[in-house]
């Protein structure tokens, strides 16, 4: 009854097929089956945000999503966003402003921040904090992260005009 189930999806644009056990969650599938270890496992119950990925363009908790639920979907991980250059400026801003220390939360922070900037190109600091409220960072105290997101938003909107 707990037999494996065949799934087909795309991960960072590449087609992937696999046979997965129903209980396998998406973050373990990405890390253990596909070797995409940029997506981190933190709390495994949806509180910390370290496992944030994009599913069909929307951010989700990969620890609260089963691999079988991603069947037919497009998954994007930090490797995809990083390799495509989509968030290169945001990554540079994180580095320049010391918005990371141990780096464990950083992939989730970057994906969540990019999600905000796609929806709202010029958020204020309260909006940045609200959107990132579901992502824990135990090193930085968050100020530097908010600074990095805010400066990226400013640079993007100024270069667009």
């Amino acid at each position, binding site marked *: 009854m707990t037999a494996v189930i065949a799934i087909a999806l795309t991960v960072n644009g590449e087609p992937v097929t696999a046979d997965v056990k*129903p*209980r396998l*969650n998406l973050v373990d599938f990405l890390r253990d089956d596909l070797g995409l270890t940029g997506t981190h496992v933190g709390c495994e119950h949806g509180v910390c945000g370290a496992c944030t990925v994009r599913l069909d363009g929307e*951010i989700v908790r990969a620890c609260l999503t089963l691999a079988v639920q991603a069947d037919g979907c497009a998954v994007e991980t930090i490797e995809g966003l990083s390799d495509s250059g989509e968030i290169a400026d945001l990554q540079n801003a994180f580095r320049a402003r010391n918005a990371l220390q141990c780096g464990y939360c950083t992939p989730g922070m970057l994906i969540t921040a990019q999600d905000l900037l796609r929806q709202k190109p010029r958020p204020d600091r309260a909006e940045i904090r609200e959107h990132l409220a*579901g992502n824990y960072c135990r090193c930085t105290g968050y100020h530097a992260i908010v600074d990095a997101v805010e400066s990226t938003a400013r640079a993007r909107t100024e270069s667009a005009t």
Partner: protein
Amino acid sequence: MKAAAFSYARATSIADALQLLARHGDDAKVLSGGQSLMPALNLRLAKPAILVDIGRLSELRGITVASDKVTIGALTRHVDLLGSREIAEELPLLREATAHVAHPAIRNRGTIGGNLAHADPASELPACMLALDATLVIRGADRERRVAAHDFFLGIYATALAADELLTRIEIPLPAPGIRYFFHEYARRSGDYALVGLAAMARTDNGRLSDLRLGYFAVGDRPQLVRAAARLVGVDVTPDLVAAAKAELMIELDPASDQQATAAMRRHLAGLLLARCVATVLDRPELAPEQAS
């Protein structure tokens, strides 16, 4: 932790889902968005033998407005509620409450039906259903039944749903024009479960309350429409009367202590919310002098 092993079936229709539930009974759990079920599985608080995934049943999605009610499909996600013009215009209480449900990544998957069927006593939406006098429509193998929100929530994670039934949609009567609402919750972190919260609807008439529905959450084993509200209806509200209503509320509520807050703290916050709510809906800030936020 990792979830215990289970098997998985993706329902192809409502009828298919009901057949699966009838076959597996208490061994099955319904999976919609999974944002409450997956933590329970990962923490091994729930160990179903099979998940029945209704997540792709598009007929359970969507928001429609008729002359007298708003109908919300059970699979409508929190992000859909937040993005809906109809909800913003007709049910601003629900919109504001939904903005307090967890975080964006969770609201992108969590559904209103899953939220209500999970029946977490600290959740915002069950209390809204009480304040809005919602009806929950439940489908079983051979019949559909309608349950008032008041009769739906039975305790911690307990509802009127039988193991072989599915919550399919929620019907909310259109509030009368001019009706006022109030929503506030106290939480340790934005998006966390509330320590105490209040979702309220009020009708006013010449400076008096003609109706007041106070839906508290995180104050007991289920959301609670409190009787203390009746003290404030149809009379000239004074600070003494607010104090009397708060005193009655203290007797009525029986909150628990946990690592987040003591029962005494929850009572105190519940009283503050009552005063803030009345002050807000009557536009009389002097009724809530202690404006903790």
